[in-house]
């Protein structure tokens, strides 16, 4: 059970230690999900271009002027505006992503400006080939713009749901457990509501040598340990 603490898992977690001495874990987003987000953004932009062109085409010189200015803004400032407003362009938001600095702080104007201007370079020679290459070659899935701006794209977790442990009779575990083992027991209890009855029994029976029980009784026994571990005797 102590495997977790010995060998680092291959994962898309990026850790950053803050001034408060704790580690923030950022779940990095890979190329595929970012490509999806970009496609959504592109679609929105094409629609915007179409709307702008349709509205201003009949307004003569001033219309042309406004149209070109809006084209310019959509081309260069569309992602920047949204990133400053809530950390993600609509496409990214739809995919549950957001952009932050690699030290966990929110994105600033300067870094958003850099990462979005450098899109031009990332896009070369076609469809973000350079950006993809860069993402595959570094640990944090950063394209060139991200590297220069010091930003990463992460999954924006929604608030995790807390599950109450089932109320059962508390039992003291018959053997001394290491902290990791204790945690695994609690993790099992927390996962129980998501598991089918058969799977619960199957997992609990694996610890038959500790509980000396089988079937539903073994599950009850383990839940009892977990309750004792989290809430104590009384």
């Amino acid at each position, binding site marked *: 059970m102590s495997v977790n603490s010995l060998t680092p898992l291959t994962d898309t977690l990026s850790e950053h230690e803050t001034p408060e001495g704790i580690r923030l874990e950022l779940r990095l987003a890979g190329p595929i999900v970012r490509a999806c987000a970009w496609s959504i953004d592109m679609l929105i932009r094409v629609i915007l271009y179409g709307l702008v062109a349709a509205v201003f085409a009949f307004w003569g010189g001033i219309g042309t002027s406004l149209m070109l200015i809006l084209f310019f803004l959509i081309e260069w400032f569309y992602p920047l505006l949204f990133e400053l407003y809530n950390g993600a362009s609509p496409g990214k938001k739809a995919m549950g992503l957001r952009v932050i600095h690699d030290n966990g702080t929110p994105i600033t104007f300067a870094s958003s400006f850099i990462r979005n201007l450098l899109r031009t370079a990332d896009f070369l020679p076609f469809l973000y080939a350079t950006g993809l290459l860069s993402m595959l070659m570094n640990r944090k899935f950063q394209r060139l713009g991200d590297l220069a701006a010091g930003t990463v794209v992460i999954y924006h*977790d929604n608030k995790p749901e807390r599950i109450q442990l089932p109320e059962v009779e508390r039992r003291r575990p018959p053997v001394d457990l290491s902290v990791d083992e204790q945690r695994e027991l609690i993790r099992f209890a927390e996962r129980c509501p998501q598991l089918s009855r058969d799977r619960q029994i199957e997992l609990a029976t694996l610890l038959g040598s500790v509980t000396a029980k089988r079937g539903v009784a073994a599950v009850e026994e383990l839940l009892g340990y977990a309750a004792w571990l989290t809430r104590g005797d009384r």
Partner: protein
Amino acid sequence: MKQAQFEARYQPLWSRLDEQLKQLESFRFRHRAELPADLPQLYRQLCNHYALSQSRRYSPQLVEALHHLVLRGHQQLYRRRGAWLWRFLSFISCDFPRSLRLNRGYFAVALVLFLLPALLAGGYCLHDDSFIYSLMSEAEVTKMEQMYRPDTARLGRTLERSADSDFAMFGFYIYNNIGIGFRTFAMGILAGVGTVLTLFYNGLVIGGVAGYLTGLGYSETFWPFVSGHSSLELTAIVISGAAGLMVGRGVLCPGRYRRLDAIKRQAGRAVPLIMGAGLMLLAAAFIEAFWSASQMPNVVKYTVSAILWFSMIVYFVYAGRGTSGTR
């Protein structure tokens, strides 16, 4: 301490912090710039609880919930707040000219990379009016000639000049010229090669056109037209180039930094330059659309141009110099 006790004891604190964060996260543009007075303290306590819950191996769900709260707190605590207008004004009055002076080496290199091909191509085109065809297509050359023909009623335009076309060209100059500036900068990340090529190419074409049209004897139309916005536009392109070169320098010669850190550092320092260049190109687009094409006598145009050049140079040399020795 058992997990249940721990949770019961600190839940009020977490809920309070959660409330404050919710307030800060909602309607960003409307709320006042201040943080609640006890937010930093609550946040640091929360960090402590998060570390404890990890080391005591409390349940993964509790740890995750606390981590989520920590991440939100971190985002709010280390956010820079408000004073947009003030920062913008102080950027124009101090930060931009200062950072240009600080990086004048890059500016000098970019200037040479732009000016040298411009002068060479210009000189060559002045004497040999077929050389321009090696730089541009025949259609483009014809368009140029039409725009600046001395008998033209539509100076600098392929459209009929009117208030309408002024506005249209304003939009076009913004779309086109600022885009060129931004691209010149962005290509710097490709080890500076992209920036060097862009500067060189722009130098060749601009110099070539100027030389060619002067050679044809269109001086009376061409030079008054371009003189007005030349100061801001050409300088801004060179400044974008300087910003691109800075990023390229980070890629090529990171010095005492790791390459990635060097790129980040150089890009951060280049931001004021490229932002300033963007603003200059915006102003240049305005001048080019509404002033350069106007029917003012050439003397007036040349005078205005001289004033613009002079004040721009004074701005870059003197603006933002502090009494405390800031350069």
